[in-house]
């Protein structure tokens, strides 16, 4: 089935379906979509009422997952002290 065309930013581009759009989201965000596919992606984004929500939700997902690191601990002081003395010991062994 040939792709339908859509007019976007003063040119005709092949229309993208929502089903294709969701598979291109990561490439779009990573900046790895080739220029012509990027145009098709952006045309769909401008013309679809639902996919902008999908893209926004992926962005929100990334931010929320990133916040997980705030809840993760730092080095326990005992472990830090142990490793520092280990470093001193290993270094003095070497120079002896």
């Amino acid at each position, binding site marked *: 089935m040939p792709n339908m065309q859509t007019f976007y930013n003063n040119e005709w581009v092949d229309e993208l379906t929502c089903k294709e759009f969701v598979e291109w989201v990561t490439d779009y965000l990573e900046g790895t979509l080739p220029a012509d596919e990027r145009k098709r992606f952006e045309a769909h984004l401008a013309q679809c009422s639902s996919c902008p929500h999908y893209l926004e939700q992926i962005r*929100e997902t990334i*931010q929320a997952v990133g916040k997980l690191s705030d809840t993760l601990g*730092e*080095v326990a002081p005992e472990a830090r002290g142990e*490793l520092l003395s280990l*470093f001193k010991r290993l270094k003095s062994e070497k120079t002896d």
Partner: protein
Amino acid sequence: MAIVALAPDQEIVAALRNGDEAAFAALLDAYHASMVRVAMLYTGDRAQAEDVTQETWVAVVKGISSFEGRSALKTWIFTILTNRAKTKSQRERRSVPFSALQSPDEEAEEYEPAVAPSAFAEDGWWRDETHPQAWRESPEAAFSSAEVGALLKQVIEALPPNQRQVITLRDVEGWTSDEVCNVLGVSESNQRVLLHRARAKVRLALDEYFNA
């Protein structure tokens, strides 16, 4: 993520070779906690992850004199860590689940859509019943509720191992795709595929939570 500004690699390496304790302390503060979390991806056990991390530091201190700078120092350290963590988890696990045996490249090559095909009509556009709608609250804003954090941890924990590793390194630890590819030994395109699937699954879980 803990953002600690470190000196350039050559300076750190020179300082470690000279036995500079402050340089080692800075490296510990920058990477130790993250190393324990990354080791946990393989061992699934905190005590074992801490052992692996400690062993890695010993290997780093002993091996720093022969570090040639062919990779970034961070990549070198985390490669030592993940190799040790893999060995340890293989040794200590009696039965390894099948999915854990798959390489990241193998896992990426299997077909898996980001959204269930049934969400789309025949023309490939969203069905009325399934089209995405703005969430009633942003997960970031709702994060303080602890419930969201617990949900995210649970969903990430349940991901296939390679997807879990990639999303944890990229989106929790804030690594670049190059760093992830080098440490996990996965191609850039497959790294992207794994990240894509992982994010899609986490999004779906959040969608069920925020649109319920």
